[in-house]
Protein backbone atom coordinates (compact mmCIF):
# COMPACT_ATOMS: atom_id res chain seq x y z
CA UNK A 1 0.00 0.00 0.00
CA UNK A 2 1.19 3.50 -0.81
CA UNK A 3 -0.30 6.39 1.12
CA UNK A 4 -0.03 10.02 0.12
CA UNK A 5 -1.06 12.58 2.68
CA UNK A 6 -1.23 16.33 2.21
CA UNK A 7 1.27 16.42 -0.67
CA UNK A 8 1.99 19.88 -2.09
CA UNK A 9 4.34 21.20 -4.72
CA UNK A 10 4.75 24.77 -5.80
CA UNK A 11 6.77 26.56 -8.43
CA UNK A 12 7.24 30.29 -7.74
CA UNK A 13 4.33 30.57 -5.29
CA UNK A 14 1.93 28.76 -7.65
CA UNK A 15 0.70 25.48 -6.33
CA UNK A 16 0.95 22.74 -8.96
CA UNK A 17 -0.34 20.22 -6.45
CA UNK A 18 -2.03 21.32 -3.27
CA UNK A 19 -2.77 19.20 -0.23
CA UNK A 20 -3.36 16.00 -2.22
CA UNK A 21 -4.04 12.75 -0.43
CA UNK A 22 -4.56 9.32 -1.94
CA UNK A 23 -4.24 5.59 -1.34
CA UNK A 24 -2.80 3.10 -3.82
CA UNK A 25 -3.63 -0.40 -2.58
CA UNK A 26 -2.15 -3.59 -3.99
CA UNK A 27 -4.13 -5.59 -6.52
CA UNK A 28 -5.87 -2.46 -7.71
CA UNK A 29 -5.50 -0.45 -10.92
CA UNK A 30 -5.86 3.24 -10.05
CA UNK A 31 -6.20 5.92 -12.73
CA UNK A 32 -5.46 9.60 -12.22
CA UNK A 33 -7.57 11.78 -14.50
CA UNK A 34 -8.07 15.49 -15.01
CA UNK A 35 -7.52 18.31 -17.52
CA UNK A 36 -4.10 19.57 -18.61
CA UNK A 37 -2.26 21.32 -15.81
CA UNK A 38 -4.24 19.58 -13.09
CA UNK A 39 -1.03 18.29 -11.48
CA UNK A 40 -1.51 14.62 -12.34
CA UNK A 41 2.04 13.97 -13.51
CA UNK A 42 3.52 15.99 -10.65
CA UNK A 43 1.53 13.96 -8.13
CA UNK A 44 2.75 10.74 -9.74
CA UNK A 45 6.36 12.00 -9.75
CA UNK A 46 6.20 12.88 -6.07
CA UNK A 47 4.67 9.54 -5.17
CA UNK A 48 7.44 7.74 -7.05
CA UNK A 49 10.36 9.87 -5.69
CA UNK A 50 11.20 11.47 -9.06
CA UNK A 51 10.26 14.91 -7.72
CA UNK A 52 10.59 16.23 -4.19
CA UNK A 53 7.47 17.46 -2.49
CA UNK A 54 7.29 20.79 -0.65
CA UNK A 55 4.90 19.51 1.98
CA UNK A 56 3.16 16.29 2.94
CA UNK A 57 4.29 12.70 3.18
CA UNK A 58 4.55 9.59 1.04
CA UNK A 59 4.47 6.30 2.91
CA UNK A 60 5.44 3.18 0.97
CA UNK A 61 4.78 -0.17 2.66
CA UNK A 62 4.56 1.50 6.12
CA UNK A 63 7.88 3.31 5.68
CA UNK A 64 8.16 7.02 4.81
CA UNK A 65 9.73 7.69 1.42
CA UNK A 66 12.72 9.59 2.82
CA UNK A 67 13.75 6.58 4.90
CA UNK A 68 13.93 4.32 1.86
CA UNK A 69 17.26 3.56 0.29
CA UNK A 70 16.94 4.26 -3.43
CA UNK A 71 18.48 0.97 -4.52
CA UNK A 72 16.23 -1.04 -2.18
CA UNK A 73 13.17 0.92 -3.25
CA UNK A 74 13.87 0.08 -6.89
CA UNK A 75 13.07 -3.55 -6.09
CA UNK A 76 9.66 -2.50 -4.81
CA UNK A 77 8.61 0.47 -6.93
CA UNK A 78 8.96 1.19 -10.66
CA UNK A 79 7.99 4.33 -12.54
CA UNK A 80 7.87 5.18 -16.23
CA UNK A 81 7.59 8.76 -17.47
CA UNK A 82 5.87 9.65 -20.70
CA UNK A 83 8.70 10.78 -22.94
CA UNK A 84 11.67 8.50 -23.16
CA UNK A 85 14.22 9.90 -25.58
CA UNK A 86 17.23 7.70 -25.59
CA UNK A 87 20.62 8.68 -26.88
CA UNK A 88 21.84 5.17 -27.47
CA UNK A 89 20.82 2.26 -29.68
CA UNK A 90 19.33 -0.64 -27.78
CA UNK A 91 17.56 -3.77 -28.89
CA UNK A 92 14.22 -4.45 -27.25
CA UNK A 93 15.75 -7.28 -25.25
CA UNK A 94 18.60 -5.11 -24.01
CA UNK A 95 16.13 -2.49 -22.88
CA UNK A 96 13.89 -4.97 -21.09
CA UNK A 97 16.98 -6.47 -19.43
CA UNK A 98 17.62 -3.12 -17.72
CA UNK A 99 14.51 -3.85 -15.68
CA UNK A 100 16.55 -6.48 -13.85
CA UNK A 101 19.25 -3.99 -12.86
CA UNK A 102 18.00 -3.39 -9.29
CA UNK A 103 18.14 -7.14 -8.67
CA UNK A 104 21.26 -8.14 -10.59
CA UNK A 105 23.36 -4.94 -10.85
CA UNK A 106 24.02 -5.70 -14.50
CA UNK A 107 25.00 -9.37 -14.19
CA UNK A 108 22.05 -11.33 -15.51
CA UNK A 109 21.42 -14.74 -13.98
CA UNK A 110 19.44 -17.52 -15.65
CA UNK A 111 16.47 -16.50 -13.53
CA UNK A 112 16.79 -12.90 -14.68
CA UNK A 113 16.72 -14.06 -18.30
CA UNK A 114 13.63 -16.12 -17.58
CA UNK A 115 11.88 -13.07 -16.10
CA UNK A 116 12.93 -10.94 -19.09
CA UNK A 117 11.43 -13.50 -21.48
CA UNK A 118 8.22 -13.61 -19.45
CA UNK A 119 7.95 -9.82 -19.42
CA UNK A 120 8.27 -9.69 -23.21
CA UNK A 121 5.74 -12.47 -23.52
CA UNK A 122 3.39 -10.57 -21.23
CA UNK A 123 3.31 -7.68 -23.70
CA UNK A 124 3.54 -9.99 -26.71
CA UNK A 125 6.74 -8.48 -28.09
CA UNK A 126 9.01 -11.56 -28.25
CA UNK A 127 8.94 -11.40 -32.05
CA UNK A 128 10.69 -8.02 -32.02
CA UNK A 129 13.15 -8.87 -29.22
CA UNK A 130 16.22 -8.40 -31.42
CA UNK A 131 15.05 -5.29 -33.28
CA UNK A 132 16.52 -1.92 -32.40
CA UNK A 133 14.26 0.58 -30.66
CA UNK A 134 14.75 3.18 -33.38
CA UNK A 135 13.37 0.73 -35.95
CA UNK A 136 10.08 0.38 -34.10
CA UNK A 137 6.79 2.24 -34.18
CA UNK A 138 5.85 4.45 -31.23
CA UNK A 139 3.44 1.81 -29.97
CA UNK A 140 5.97 -1.00 -30.10
CA UNK A 141 8.55 1.16 -28.36
CA UNK A 142 6.11 1.97 -25.58
CA UNK A 143 5.36 -1.76 -25.20
CA UNK A 144 9.10 -2.37 -24.83
CA UNK A 145 9.40 0.26 -22.08
CA UNK A 146 6.44 -1.20 -20.24
CA UNK A 147 8.01 -4.65 -20.56
CA UNK A 148 11.09 -3.19 -18.86
CA UNK A 149 8.92 -2.05 -15.95
CA UNK A 150 7.27 -5.47 -15.83
CA UNK A 151 10.69 -7.15 -15.75
CA UNK A 152 11.60 -5.00 -12.77
CA UNK A 153 8.95 -7.07 -10.98
CA UNK A 154 7.98 -4.53 -8.33
CA UNK A 155 4.93 -4.37 -6.05
CA UNK A 156 4.18 -0.80 -7.11
CA UNK A 157 4.07 0.42 -10.71
CA UNK A 158 3.56 4.02 -11.77
CA UNK A 159 2.98 4.89 -15.42
CA UNK A 160 2.68 8.44 -16.67
CA UNK A 161 0.39 8.58 -19.72
CA UNK A 162 1.29 5.16 -21.10
CA UNK A 163 -1.21 5.61 -23.95
CA UNK A 164 0.19 8.92 -25.17
CA UNK A 165 0.13 9.01 -29.00
CA UNK A 166 -0.75 5.35 -29.34
CA UNK A 167 -3.28 3.81 -31.68
CA UNK A 168 -6.34 1.97 -30.41
CA UNK A 169 -4.90 -1.52 -30.76
CA UNK A 170 -1.75 -0.76 -28.77
CA UNK A 171 -3.76 1.16 -26.18
CA UNK A 172 -6.11 -1.76 -25.63
CA UNK A 173 -3.20 -4.20 -25.42
CA UNK A 174 -1.31 -2.06 -22.94
CA UNK A 175 -4.33 -1.46 -20.69
CA UNK A 176 -5.11 -5.20 -20.79
CA UNK A 177 -1.54 -6.02 -19.77
CA UNK A 178 -1.58 -3.45 -16.98
CA UNK A 179 -4.90 -4.66 -15.64
CA UNK A 180 -3.55 -8.20 -15.65
CA UNK A 181 -0.60 -7.07 -13.51
CA UNK A 182 -2.92 -5.59 -10.92
CA UNK A 183 -5.55 -8.33 -10.80
CA UNK A 184 -3.52 -11.49 -11.36
CA UNK A 185 -0.16 -10.52 -9.90
CA UNK A 186 -1.50 -8.40 -7.03
CA UNK A 187 0.50 -5.29 -7.87
CA UNK A 188 -0.55 -1.72 -7.14
CA UNK A 189 -0.68 -0.06 -10.54
CA UNK A 190 -1.19 3.69 -10.93
CA UNK A 191 -1.61 5.33 -14.35
CA UNK A 192 -2.05 8.92 -15.40
CA UNK A 193 -4.45 8.78 -18.30
CA UNK A 194 -6.20 11.28 -20.56
CA UNK A 195 -8.68 9.09 -22.36
CA UNK A 196 -11.61 9.04 -19.96
CA UNK A 197 -13.20 5.98 -21.53
CA UNK A 198 -10.03 3.93 -21.15
CA UNK A 199 -9.96 4.97 -17.50
CA UNK A 200 -13.64 4.06 -17.07
CA UNK A 201 -13.26 0.67 -18.75
CA UNK A 202 -10.11 -0.64 -17.10
CA UNK A 203 -9.53 0.98 -13.72
CA UNK A 204 -10.82 -0.16 -10.35
CA UNK A 205 -10.36 3.19 -8.71
CA UNK A 206 -10.09 6.72 -10.11
CA UNK A 207 -8.58 9.89 -8.69
CA UNK A 208 -9.92 13.05 -10.37
CA UNK A 209 -7.80 16.19 -10.15
CA UNK A 210 -8.33 19.80 -11.11
CA UNK A 211 -5.99 22.78 -10.56
CA UNK A 212 -3.68 20.81 -8.33
CA UNK A 213 -6.33 19.45 -6.03
CA UNK A 214 -7.91 16.04 -5.70
CA UNK A 215 -11.59 16.72 -6.38
CA UNK A 216 -12.90 13.21 -6.08
CA UNK A 217 -11.45 9.77 -5.52
CA UNK A 218 -13.16 6.47 -5.21
CA UNK A 219 -14.37 3.42 -7.10
CA UNK A 220 -14.74 3.89 -10.83
CA UNK A 221 -18.55 4.08 -10.68
CA UNK A 222 -18.42 6.90 -8.15
CA UNK A 223 -16.11 9.08 -10.23
CA UNK A 224 -17.45 8.31 -13.70
CA UNK A 225 -20.48 10.39 -13.00
CA UNK A 226 -22.02 13.15 -15.10
CA UNK A 227 -21.95 15.81 -12.37
CA UNK A 228 -18.38 15.04 -11.25
CA UNK A 229 -16.88 14.93 -14.74
CA UNK A 230 -18.76 17.99 -16.00
CA UNK A 231 -17.39 19.92 -13.04
CA UNK A 232 -13.80 18.75 -13.58
CA UNK A 233 -13.57 19.22 -17.33
CA UNK A 234 -15.96 22.19 -17.53
CA UNK A 235 -17.90 20.73 -20.45
CA UNK A 236 -21.21 18.84 -20.38
CA UNK A 237 -20.89 15.05 -20.03
CA UNK A 238 -23.42 12.38 -20.87
CA UNK A 239 -22.81 8.89 -19.55
CA UNK A 240 -24.41 5.74 -21.02
CA UNK A 241 -24.08 2.13 -20.05
CA UNK A 242 -23.06 -0.15 -22.90
CA UNK A 243 -22.95 -3.84 -22.00
CA UNK A 244 -22.48 -3.03 -18.31
CA UNK A 245 -19.74 -0.55 -19.06
CA UNK A 246 -19.99 3.19 -18.45
CA UNK A 247 -19.10 5.19 -21.56
CA UNK A 248 -18.74 8.96 -21.55
CA UNK A 249 -20.07 11.10 -24.37
CA UNK A 250 -18.57 14.55 -24.55
CA UNK A 251 -18.27 15.16 -28.30
CA UNK A 252 -20.57 17.42 -30.21
Amino acid at each position, binding site marked *: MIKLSGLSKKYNDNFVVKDASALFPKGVLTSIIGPNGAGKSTLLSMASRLTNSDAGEVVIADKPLNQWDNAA*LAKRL*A*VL*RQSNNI*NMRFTVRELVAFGRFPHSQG*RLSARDNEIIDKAMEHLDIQHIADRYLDQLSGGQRQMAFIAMVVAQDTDYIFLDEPLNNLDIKHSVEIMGAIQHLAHDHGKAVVVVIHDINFAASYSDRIIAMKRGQVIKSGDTVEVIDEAVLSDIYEIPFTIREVEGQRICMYYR
Partner: protein
Amino acid sequence: MRNSTKLILLCVATLAIIALFLGKGLDAHNYRFFLSRRIPKVLAILLAATAISWSSLVFQTVTNNRILTPSILGFDSLYVMIQVLLVVLAGGLSPLVIQPMLNFSVTTAIMAGLSLSLFAWYFYGKQRDLFSLLLIGIICSSLFSSVTGFFTMVIDPSEFMAIQASMFASFNNVNGALVYWTIAPMLLCLALLLKLAPKLDVLWLGPDNATSLGINVRKLTLQIMALVTVLISVATALVGPVLFFGLIVVSLTRQLFSSYQHRLLLPASSALAAFLLLTGQWIVENLMAFETTISVIINFVGGSYFLLLLARNKVN
Protein backbone atom coordinates in the same frame (compact mmCIF):
# COMPACT_ATOMS: atom_id res chain seq x y z
CA MET B 1 33.19 -8.02 -37.30
CA ARG B 2 32.60 -8.72 -33.64
CA ASN B 3 33.39 -6.10 -31.04
CA SER B 4 35.98 -8.28 -29.30
CA THR B 5 37.80 -8.89 -32.60
CA LYS B 6 37.86 -5.17 -33.30
CA LEU B 7 39.23 -4.44 -29.84
CA ILE B 8 42.00 -7.03 -30.26
CA LEU B 9 42.97 -5.65 -33.68
CA LEU B 10 43.06 -2.14 -32.29
CA CYS B 11 45.27 -3.20 -29.38
CA VAL B 12 47.65 -5.01 -31.78
CA ALA B 13 47.88 -1.89 -33.94
CA THR B 14 48.55 0.24 -30.85
CA LEU B 15 51.27 -2.13 -29.65
CA ALA B 16 52.83 -2.04 -33.12
CA ILE B 17 53.01 1.73 -33.12
CA ILE B 18 54.43 1.71 -29.57
CA ALA B 19 57.14 -0.69 -30.76
CA LEU B 20 57.84 1.57 -33.73
CA PHE B 21 58.13 4.55 -31.43
CA LEU B 22 60.41 2.91 -28.90
CA GLY B 23 62.44 0.82 -31.28
CA LYS B 24 63.51 3.29 -33.96
CA GLY B 25 67.29 3.22 -34.47
CA LEU B 26 68.04 1.34 -31.27
CA ASP B 27 71.26 -0.65 -30.99
CA ALA B 28 73.25 -2.23 -28.18
CA HIS B 29 75.14 1.01 -27.43
CA ASN B 30 72.48 3.68 -27.46
CA TYR B 31 69.43 1.87 -26.11
CA ARG B 32 69.80 3.13 -22.55
CA PHE B 33 69.85 6.72 -23.57
CA PHE B 34 67.05 6.49 -26.11
CA LEU B 35 64.77 4.38 -23.97
CA SER B 36 65.21 6.65 -20.96
CA ARG B 37 63.95 9.47 -23.15
CA ARG B 38 61.30 7.61 -25.04
CA ILE B 39 59.61 5.49 -22.38
CA PRO B 40 58.35 8.45 -20.31
CA LYS B 41 57.09 10.08 -23.46
CA VAL B 42 55.19 7.05 -24.72
CA LEU B 43 53.88 6.41 -21.23
CA ALA B 44 52.72 10.02 -20.93
CA ILE B 45 50.90 9.78 -24.25
CA LEU B 46 49.27 6.49 -23.23
CA LEU B 47 48.16 7.91 -19.88
CA ALA B 48 46.89 11.12 -21.46
CA ALA B 49 45.05 9.19 -24.18
CA THR B 50 43.29 7.09 -21.57
CA ALA B 51 42.55 10.04 -19.31
CA ILE B 52 41.09 12.12 -22.14
CA SER B 53 39.02 9.36 -23.72
CA TRP B 54 37.61 7.97 -20.46
CA SER B 55 36.79 11.36 -19.02
CA SER B 56 35.08 12.51 -22.22
CA LEU B 57 33.07 9.33 -22.58
CA VAL B 58 31.72 9.24 -19.03
CA PHE B 59 31.17 13.00 -19.05
CA GLN B 60 28.96 12.61 -22.10
CA THR B 61 27.05 9.84 -20.40
CA VAL B 62 26.31 11.75 -17.19
CA THR B 63 25.37 14.93 -19.06
CA ASN B 64 23.34 12.90 -21.55
CA ASN B 65 24.77 14.49 -24.68
CA ARG B 66 27.10 13.50 -27.48
CA ILE B 67 28.82 16.73 -28.27
CA LEU B 68 30.18 18.35 -25.13
CA THR B 69 33.38 17.18 -23.51
CA PRO B 70 35.10 18.51 -20.39
CA SER B 71 37.67 20.28 -22.60
CA ILE B 72 35.03 22.07 -24.61
CA LEU B 73 33.45 23.25 -21.36
CA GLY B 74 36.76 24.77 -20.30
CA PHE B 75 38.20 22.23 -17.84
CA ASP B 76 41.62 22.29 -19.55
CA SER B 77 41.81 26.06 -19.56
CA LEU B 78 40.82 26.02 -15.90
CA TYR B 79 43.86 23.84 -15.19
CA VAL B 80 46.20 26.19 -17.03
CA MET B 81 44.66 29.21 -15.32
CA ILE B 82 45.21 27.70 -11.88
CA GLN B 83 48.85 27.07 -12.83
CA VAL B 84 49.37 30.69 -13.79
CA LEU B 85 47.58 31.97 -10.70
CA LEU B 86 49.85 29.80 -8.54
CA VAL B 87 52.88 31.45 -10.08
CA VAL B 88 51.39 34.89 -9.60
CA LEU B 89 50.31 34.34 -6.02
CA ALA B 90 53.09 32.09 -4.71
CA GLY B 91 55.98 33.25 -6.87
CA GLY B 92 57.91 31.39 -9.55
CA LEU B 93 60.35 29.77 -7.15
CA SER B 94 57.80 28.51 -4.67
CA PRO B 95 57.71 24.73 -4.12
CA LEU B 96 54.08 24.92 -5.21
CA VAL B 97 55.34 25.69 -8.69
CA ILE B 98 58.65 23.90 -8.89
CA GLN B 99 57.90 20.52 -7.32
CA PRO B 100 55.91 18.60 -9.93
CA MET B 101 53.99 16.34 -7.57
CA LEU B 102 53.08 19.07 -5.10
CA ASN B 103 52.10 21.34 -7.96
CA PHE B 104 49.98 18.62 -9.51
CA SER B 105 48.18 17.73 -6.26
CA VAL B 106 47.45 21.31 -5.32
CA THR B 107 46.24 22.20 -8.80
CA THR B 108 44.03 19.12 -8.96
CA ALA B 109 42.53 19.84 -5.55
CA ILE B 110 41.73 23.45 -6.44
CA MET B 111 40.38 22.35 -9.76
CA ALA B 112 38.17 19.69 -8.18
CA GLY B 113 36.68 22.28 -5.86
CA LEU B 114 36.12 24.82 -8.59
CA SER B 115 34.84 22.43 -11.23
CA LEU B 116 32.44 20.70 -8.84
CA SER B 117 30.90 24.02 -7.82
CA LEU B 118 30.83 25.13 -11.45
CA PHE B 119 29.18 21.87 -12.30
CA ALA B 120 26.66 22.18 -9.48
CA TRP B 121 25.75 25.55 -10.88
CA TYR B 122 25.51 24.18 -14.42
CA PHE B 123 23.23 21.31 -13.60
CA TYR B 124 21.45 21.73 -10.30
CA GLY B 125 19.96 25.19 -10.61
CA LYS B 126 17.37 24.20 -13.13
CA GLN B 127 17.25 22.03 -16.18
CA ARG B 128 19.44 23.80 -18.73
CA ASP B 129 19.44 22.83 -22.36
CA LEU B 130 22.52 21.80 -24.21
CA PHE B 131 23.05 25.00 -26.11
CA SER B 132 22.98 27.25 -23.07
CA LEU B 133 25.41 24.86 -21.44
CA LEU B 134 27.65 25.06 -24.48
CA LEU B 135 27.51 28.85 -24.37
CA ILE B 136 28.32 28.97 -20.66
CA GLY B 137 31.19 26.56 -21.27
CA ILE B 138 32.64 28.61 -24.08
CA ILE B 139 32.34 31.80 -22.05
CA CYS B 140 34.03 30.20 -19.04
CA SER B 141 36.68 28.70 -21.24
CA SER B 142 37.57 32.01 -22.86
CA LEU B 143 37.39 33.74 -19.48
CA PHE B 144 39.94 31.30 -18.09
CA SER B 145 42.16 31.76 -21.17
CA SER B 146 41.94 35.53 -20.89
CA VAL B 147 42.87 35.46 -17.21
CA THR B 148 45.78 33.19 -18.11
CA GLY B 149 46.80 35.51 -20.93
CA PHE B 150 46.54 38.58 -18.74
CA PHE B 151 48.77 37.25 -15.99
CA THR B 152 51.21 35.84 -18.50
CA MET B 153 51.68 39.40 -19.77
CA VAL B 154 51.90 40.94 -16.29
CA ILE B 155 54.28 38.43 -14.78
CA ASP B 156 58.04 39.03 -14.56
CA PRO B 157 59.41 37.73 -17.90
CA SER B 158 62.46 35.92 -16.55
CA GLU B 159 60.37 34.23 -13.88
CA PHE B 160 57.88 33.20 -16.47
CA MET B 161 60.47 31.75 -18.84
CA ALA B 162 61.92 29.67 -16.05
CA ILE B 163 58.71 27.92 -15.26
CA GLN B 164 57.08 27.93 -18.66
CA ALA B 165 58.55 24.64 -19.77
CA SER B 166 57.28 22.71 -16.78
CA MET B 167 53.92 24.46 -16.73
CA PHE B 168 52.70 24.20 -20.24
CA ALA B 169 53.26 20.71 -21.46
CA SER B 170 52.64 19.73 -25.05
CA PHE B 171 53.11 16.63 -27.11
CA ASN B 172 56.56 17.78 -28.23
CA ASN B 173 57.42 18.67 -24.66
CA VAL B 174 55.91 15.98 -22.48
CA ASN B 175 56.13 16.56 -18.74
CA GLY B 176 58.42 13.61 -17.98
CA ALA B 177 58.94 14.45 -14.31
CA LEU B 178 55.29 13.82 -13.54
CA VAL B 179 54.68 10.67 -15.55
CA TYR B 180 55.44 8.07 -12.89
CA TRP B 181 53.73 10.05 -10.16
CA THR B 182 50.43 10.16 -12.00
CA ILE B 183 50.21 6.41 -12.60
CA ALA B 184 48.81 5.59 -9.15
CA PRO B 185 46.00 8.20 -9.06
CA MET B 186 45.18 7.33 -12.68
CA LEU B 187 44.84 3.62 -11.94
CA LEU B 188 42.67 4.39 -8.93
CA CYS B 189 40.34 6.53 -11.05
CA LEU B 190 40.17 3.93 -13.81
CA ALA B 191 39.35 1.17 -11.32
CA LEU B 192 36.58 3.27 -9.76
CA LEU B 193 35.15 4.10 -13.17
CA LEU B 194 35.12 0.43 -14.16
CA LYS B 195 33.33 -0.33 -10.92
CA LEU B 196 30.70 2.32 -11.70
CA ALA B 197 30.42 1.19 -15.34
CA PRO B 198 27.19 -0.88 -14.99
CA LYS B 199 25.48 2.09 -13.33
CA LEU B 200 26.65 4.33 -16.14
CA ASP B 201 25.02 1.95 -18.62
CA VAL B 202 21.69 2.57 -16.87
CA LEU B 203 22.16 6.33 -17.26
CA TRP B 204 21.68 5.95 -21.04
CA LEU B 205 17.97 5.61 -20.21
CA GLY B 206 17.84 9.15 -18.81
CA PRO B 207 17.77 10.36 -15.20
CA ASP B 208 14.14 9.42 -14.47
CA ASN B 209 14.43 5.84 -15.65
CA ALA B 210 17.79 5.50 -13.91
CA THR B 211 16.22 6.69 -10.64
CA SER B 212 13.42 4.21 -11.10
CA LEU B 213 16.06 1.49 -11.51
CA GLY B 214 17.64 2.41 -8.19
CA ILE B 215 20.47 4.71 -9.27
CA ASN B 216 21.09 7.76 -7.11
CA VAL B 217 21.67 9.98 -10.14
CA ARG B 218 22.89 13.00 -8.20
CA LYS B 219 25.43 11.03 -6.21
CA LEU B 220 26.64 9.12 -9.25
CA THR B 221 27.01 12.36 -11.20
CA LEU B 222 29.11 13.91 -8.45
CA GLN B 223 31.32 10.83 -8.17
CA ILE B 224 31.86 10.80 -11.92
CA MET B 225 32.59 14.53 -12.03
CA ALA B 226 35.21 14.19 -9.30
CA LEU B 227 36.90 11.38 -11.23
CA VAL B 228 36.66 13.31 -14.50
CA THR B 229 38.37 16.28 -12.85
CA VAL B 230 41.32 14.16 -11.73
CA LEU B 231 41.64 12.60 -15.17
CA ILE B 232 41.57 15.97 -16.92
CA SER B 233 44.22 17.25 -14.52
CA VAL B 234 46.44 14.28 -15.34
CA ALA B 235 46.03 14.74 -19.07
CA THR B 236 46.56 18.50 -18.99
CA ALA B 237 49.57 18.18 -16.71
CA LEU B 238 51.20 15.61 -18.95
CA VAL B 239 50.55 16.86 -22.48
CA GLY B 240 48.75 20.19 -22.11
CA PRO B 241 45.25 21.08 -23.25
CA VAL B 242 43.88 19.33 -26.34
CA LEU B 243 40.52 20.88 -27.03
CA PHE B 244 38.78 18.54 -29.44
CA PHE B 245 40.57 15.24 -29.01
CA GLY B 246 38.04 13.79 -26.56
CA LEU B 247 35.20 14.56 -28.91
CA ILE B 248 36.85 12.80 -31.87
CA VAL B 249 37.82 9.72 -29.91
CA VAL B 250 34.47 9.21 -28.22
CA SER B 251 32.60 9.71 -31.47
CA LEU B 252 34.80 7.29 -33.37
CA THR B 253 34.60 4.74 -30.58
CA ARG B 254 30.82 4.86 -30.67
CA GLN B 255 30.81 4.39 -34.43
CA LEU B 256 33.30 1.53 -34.39
CA PHE B 257 31.84 -0.32 -31.43
CA SER B 258 28.09 -0.48 -31.48
CA SER B 259 27.68 -1.26 -27.84
CA TYR B 260 26.13 0.48 -24.88
CA GLN B 261 28.34 -1.20 -22.31
CA HIS B 262 30.90 1.06 -20.70
CA ARG B 263 33.01 -1.95 -19.76
CA LEU B 264 33.66 -2.38 -23.49
CA LEU B 265 33.51 1.25 -24.61
CA LEU B 266 36.01 2.51 -22.02
CA PRO B 267 38.93 0.19 -22.88
CA ALA B 268 38.09 0.50 -26.57
CA SER B 269 38.20 4.28 -26.41
CA SER B 270 41.58 4.31 -24.71
CA ALA B 271 43.06 1.86 -27.23
CA LEU B 272 41.74 4.02 -30.05
CA ALA B 273 42.96 7.23 -28.43
CA ALA B 274 46.44 5.81 -27.85
CA PHE B 275 46.61 4.58 -31.42
CA LEU B 276 45.56 7.95 -32.84
CA LEU B 277 47.87 10.01 -30.64
CA LEU B 278 50.93 7.82 -31.14
CA THR B 279 50.40 7.59 -34.88
CA GLY B 280 49.88 11.33 -35.10
CA GLN B 281 52.93 12.07 -32.99
CA TRP B 282 55.03 9.63 -35.03
CA ILE B 283 53.98 11.39 -38.23
CA VAL B 284 54.77 14.80 -36.72
CA GLU B 285 58.21 13.66 -35.61
CA ASN B 286 59.28 11.59 -38.56
CA LEU B 287 57.46 12.89 -41.62
CA MET B 288 57.02 16.52 -40.70
CA ALA B 289 60.26 16.92 -38.73
CA PHE B 290 58.55 18.63 -35.75
CA GLU B 291 57.39 21.46 -37.98
CA THR B 292 53.94 21.35 -36.47
CA THR B 293 52.43 19.90 -33.33
CA ILE B 294 49.84 17.20 -33.15
CA SER B 295 47.61 19.51 -31.07
CA VAL B 296 47.28 21.76 -34.09
CA ILE B 297 46.22 18.85 -36.29
CA ILE B 298 43.81 17.55 -33.67
CA ASN B 299 42.23 20.93 -33.18
CA PHE B 300 41.91 21.45 -36.92
CA VAL B 301 40.31 18.06 -37.58
CA GLY B 302 38.33 18.08 -34.34
CA GLY B 303 37.13 21.63 -34.80
CA SER B 304 35.84 20.86 -38.29
CA TYR B 305 34.12 17.78 -36.98
CA PHE B 306 32.57 19.76 -34.13
CA LEU B 307 31.20 22.30 -36.60
CA LEU B 308 29.84 19.48 -38.72
CA LEU B 309 28.05 18.01 -35.70
CA LEU B 310 26.54 21.39 -34.86
CA ALA B 311 25.53 22.00 -38.46
CA ARG B 312 23.84 18.64 -38.78
CA ASN B 313 22.21 19.43 -35.45
CA LYS B 314 22.83 15.91 -34.28
CA VAL B 315 23.39 17.27 -30.84
CA ASN B 316 21.02 14.92 -29.16
